[in-house]
């Protein structure tokens, strides 16, 4: 790239500027900027992990009773007489809400992706794509607000249950939040299936649904699995909406109408008021390490699945 960039919109005024030199400097600077942009993600992710680990890992390994942490539902971190740090109810809360969200989001978003990629045409398709992306742009606190003030009374009245802040409420909201991401990625996966496959199937007399079901979906399977896994990761890590819509109650759920509490919401609600360096503080960081590992594994799996697809293709 030795050619000087053309300054068509901004020509040098008369004087004989050393254009080559200027372009060379610009080139160097841009190279460095782009390089920094490229590696910044790695620097940040390592930095974050080192920070979380330095605050919680030593404590988690040496002092924390991991048996209590994973198997006790008693979360009483601020008790003065007998603090207990059982995260079982929090883990169950996060898992149940994320699981319910996936029950809602997977059929909807895969359906939407198939419709947008295979059936919708022209204007319908463009409008749908924009709307799906718009859905992803709604801030999570707004979703939480909807859960707290609209869905709560609605669920109480519809299902005749005592409280509407529960797995159903948070799961619905989280499902709607995860759906746009899953739809977009799944649609990309379906678009990546070569048109030749569809044409071959149609030439053999397959109906459109047969083309989708027998040809496109199997060919795009890996991308679809990755889409679902990224949606699960989103559901696991979401904080504000679940803080507001779950009821934030330390409780092992037995039905979708039970209030629960999520790991993320617990950290968000308690970390700000916890003295730095106390046991409670370190346990919250341990929760953070646990969440980080789980979402890391989910994303890694999604990534490996996509890579598998590339290798096969």
């Amino acid at each position, binding site marked *: 790239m030795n050619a000087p960039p053309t300054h068509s919109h*901004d020509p040098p005024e008369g004087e004989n500027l050393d254009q080559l030199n200027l372009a060379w400097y610009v080139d160097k600077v841009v190279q460095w900027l782009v390089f920094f942009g490229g590696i910044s993600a790695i620097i940040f992710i390592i930095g974050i992990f080192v920070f979380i680990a330095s605050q919680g890992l030593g404590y988690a390994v040496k002092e924390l009773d991991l048996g209590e942490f994973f198997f006790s*539902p*008693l*979360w*009483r*971190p*601020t*008790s*003065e*007489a*007998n603090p207990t740090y059982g995260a079982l*109810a929090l883990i169950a809360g996060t898992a149940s809400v994320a699981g319910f969200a996936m029950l809602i989001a997977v059929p909807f978003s895969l359906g939407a992706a198939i419709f947008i990629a295979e059936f919708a045409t022209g204007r319908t398709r463009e409008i749908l794509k924009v709307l799906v992306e718009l859905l992803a742009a709604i801030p999570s606190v707004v979703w939480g607000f909807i859960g*707290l*003030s609209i869905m*709560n*009374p609605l669920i*109480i009245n519809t299902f*005749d*249950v*005592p*409280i*509407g*802040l529960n797995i159903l409420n948070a799961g619905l909201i989280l499902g709607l939040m995860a759906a746009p991401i899953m739809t977009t990625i799944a649609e990309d996966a379906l678009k990546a299936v070569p048109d030749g496959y569809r044409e071959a199937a149609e030439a053999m007399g397959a109906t459109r649904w047969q083309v989708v079901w027998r040809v496109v979906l199997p060919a795009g399977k890996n991308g679809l699995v990755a889409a679902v896994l990224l949606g699960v990761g989103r559901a696991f890590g979401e904080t504000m909406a679940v*803080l507001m819509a779950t*009821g*934030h*109650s*330390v*409780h092992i759920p037995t039905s979708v109408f039970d*209030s629960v*509490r999520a790991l993320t919401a617990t950290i968000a*609600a*308690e970390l*700000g*008021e*916890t*003295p*730095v360096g106390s046991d409670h503080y370190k346990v919250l960081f341990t929760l953070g390490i646990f969440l980080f590992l789980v979402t890391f594994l989910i994303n890694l799996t999604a990534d490996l699945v996509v890579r598998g697809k590339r290798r096969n293709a």
Partner: protein
Amino acid sequence: MKRIPLFLGLLAMLAAACGGGAGSDRVVLQNKGSDTLVNVAQAWAEKYKEVNPNLAVAVTGGGSGTGISALINGTVDIANASRKLKAKELEQAKANGVEPKEFIVGYDALAVFLHPSNPIETLTIAQLADIYGENGTAENWDALGIDFEGCKSGEIIRVSRQNNSGTYVYFKDAVLGKTGEYKLGSRDMHGSKDVVDLVAKTPCAIGYSGLAYATHEVKMAAIAMEAGSPPVMPSVESASDGSYPIARPLLMYTAGEPTGAVKEYLDWILSDEGQRLIVEKGYAPVRALQN
């Protein structure tokens, strides 16, 4: 390169704007802590601008624990708290070379809120402990002899606060005793206002928060110390004369004996003018005020 002069111009403006702020001799006090006190603290800070225009008070909430840890870490001038310093916090403060000094700036009645359809008028401390306490047995409203149309399932929906809130700690101490624990499974809201909002929309619910957060959409129970004693409604009067059983002092802490601007500010808060503002916000003053 036509864009460069514009860019430089913007930079110069920015620099001028910053310089203007730093150039004057305004003093900024940092004031942080209790969400219960945050509205009053803001009102004080606003009004104090008229008394002393050279002093700005930056008020932030976050909870009593947040304010106290900020005081221990030396990042605030005044910490607001709706509970007293814990022994452990006092130790930490001393270890950091901070000697917290306590000022009572008002009183707050902790109201027990119910849905308007709930027929309960009075509750005793023992009944509250039965509902909220670890060893309490009241899971359904019929344990209190209550059965009402709005709450068909009959389940008591306990609404509480996040476990670092001063309100949470004070309610625990006052109702469940120093060694008592809450029954897990309450809905732990992240602010007094959220408690009131949730109770207003949930017929089976019971919740507690500062009296100042009461709205017309919820009803308050009169509280009796024991089964035989007279129930008292929460109010500014019953909080200041001590007849309401769950009223607490609202506190401000400084690091060491306050001097200069901090002292002037605290003196003004405790003056009749400052105390009238706390009454306006629904809390009780530290002493009877002349009108």
